[in-house]
């Protein structure tokens, strides 16, 4: 019996396929686009090529109620907390950096959500911030990490408005600042915004598409807060948690 969890985010739709022992066998993600159902269907079709999947599909995220197949919708924050606790088995703080929002979750020692906070309405500190700047600098977001690895010093980017940040960067380029140092500055800007969400008083887990694709960000988090970890494929955790949340209901 193969179960599927899907996290329908505003930027990407992430799916996991689990066996009867809740081991993750497959991961797949697609760009969400404007049709949540279509994006999810691509994932379901992909998994169905090799496995006979069972319904309902366990969903979370913005588009969690948009599928045209049988689903059980879940809160993505609760799902993420569940998955993190499943992996680490302890109370911790979670920062999830997604495409359009950043979340702080305090997971208690029973695996529940003690409190949570989301970023304010602007895109600062989220994947959109990085993607927009990459686009304007004409580099791919995935090249960002390699570029930042070559930095020799951190440059402070003070604007948190994406558009103003680009103007600031152009000013610094004119002043002779290197691109690697600027990109490192962008990463620090994202991290600083994350630390505004809450005081971190214990163990910090970083999740989401951003840490998965920009591993240097996790390293920089550790420099600021040593008890930091980021599991592999963390952007799939919420999808995984959606299935785990319904474990007691599953035969």
């Amino acid at each position: 019996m193969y179960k599927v969890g899907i996290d329908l985010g505003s930027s990407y739709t992430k799916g996991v396929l689990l066996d009867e022992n809740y081991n993750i066998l497959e991961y797949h993600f697609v760009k969400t686009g404007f049709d949540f159902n279509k994006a999810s269907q691509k994932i379901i079709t992909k998994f169905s090529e090799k496995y006979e999947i069972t319904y309902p599909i366990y969903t979370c995220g913005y588009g969690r109620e948009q599928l045209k197949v049988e689903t059980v919708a879940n809160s993505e924050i609760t799902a993420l907390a569940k998955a993190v606790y499943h992996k680490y088995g302890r109370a911790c703080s979670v920062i999830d950096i997604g495409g359009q929002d950043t979340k702080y979750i305090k997971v208690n020692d029973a695996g529940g959500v003690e409190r949570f906070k989301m970023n304010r309405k602007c895109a600062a500190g989220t994947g959109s911030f990085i993607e927009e700047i990459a686009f304007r600098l004409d580099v791919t977001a995935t090249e960002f990490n390699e570029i930042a690895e070559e930095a020799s010093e951190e440059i402070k980017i003070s604007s948190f408005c994406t558009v103003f940040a680009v103007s600031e960067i152009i000013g610094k380029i004119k002043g002779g600042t290197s691109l690697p140092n600027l990109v490192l500055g962008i990463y620090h800007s994202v991290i600083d915004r994350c630390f505004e969400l809450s005081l971190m008083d214990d163990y910090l887990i970083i999740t989401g598409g951003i840490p998965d694709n920009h591993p240097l960000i996790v390293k920089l988090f550790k420099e600021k807060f040593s008890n930091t970890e980021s599991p592999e494929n963390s952007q799939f955790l919420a999808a995984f948690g959606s299935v785990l949340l319904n474990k007691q209901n599953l035969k």
Partner: protein
Amino acid sequence: MSQEKSGIIKLQSVGLLRQTMGDYFGRLKEAVDTGNKKIAWCTSVGPAELLYSMGFEVYFPENHGAMLGASKKADTYIPSAVSQGYSPDICSYLTSDIGAFLQNETPLQKSGFKSIPKPDILVYNTNQCREVADWFSYYAKHFSAPIIGVNTPLCINALTPNIVKNVAKQFEELVPELEKVSTQKFDIDRFRETIELSRDGCVLWRKVLETARHKPSPINFFDSAIHMGPIVVMRGTEYATDYYKVLLAELNNRVENNISAVPNEKHRIYWDGMPLWYKLSDMAKLFAKHDTSIVASTYCNSWVFDDLDPASPFESSALAYCKLFIVRADEVKENVLEKLVSDFSIEGIIYHESKTCARNSNNLYGLHNRLFKKTNVPFLEIHGDLNDSRCYSEESSIIAIETFVDQLGNGQ
């Protein structure tokens, strides 16, 4: 019992509410059309009783602002005000109201008004914010009408006799100009009457809100935000007291029969901050869907002026209008909220931080964290605005609200 498709059980009194508010606007229109009475503009927690006692019909621009928000068109009006030099970051009642005026539009046109009623005088109290003075100044200039007001100290901690004396004096100093414009001599006995009517209306309104202590609650925030209309705009008249007697009777009946505003009420929440006027119905359905009732709020509790006393109308007006929650220091606010949280059996608090209304956003200076330490009641902050829907991210707020309610369900 009428039940909407969403499952919310509608109050029967809403029909009488419509009539009461309709009659209020009818009286205003008569004053506009015939000049039978002078028209005073007043701020929502301004000296309505004094104005009614001097024979004015009283118009409240903030009530109009809320109508603009509820019409979902406020964000089409705000840019007009911004083009005149007002920041989009200031009070969106102000910017949408002035913007609508510049575009010569008003929801009042559906009631036969050509435009908002021209003021003969504008009267403000800065107890709630400074913006009302700026707002009224715009119209005073435009209509060449006199503008007078009371300037109340901000963030009052201890409400000392000196503060009350100072503000009471300012109330008294409004009288000469009011006499000039109304062409009526100030009558202290008439003022005592309106003060008594206002107090009676406020006591009834308080009792209306207190029915929500019952589990399940017969009324929720999305009802109260509408049913508070009379206590805001008809405070000091028999129209408000008459209406609330009827509403209270209906709510008491609901309490006796365990009829709840939200069927299957499982969670009880406190709402701090302004309503999102453009999302009232959607939010009512969202919370009902999750068996959650917003049973108390700072906003609706704000029109309770128990201290009004016909024996000392000026002094008690000063006391009542300074004692108001929005005027007070955080220390006082925390104590008030702590009591409300206990009285109404609150499981969770939602702080709505309005982009353009810092005075009604009580999470800005850490109050939410301090209150959590005292009460251990979990809270959620959502970011939006009272009227400017462009400031509200609906999808992420829905996720946040649903997660918060989920948390309450898990007893965390």
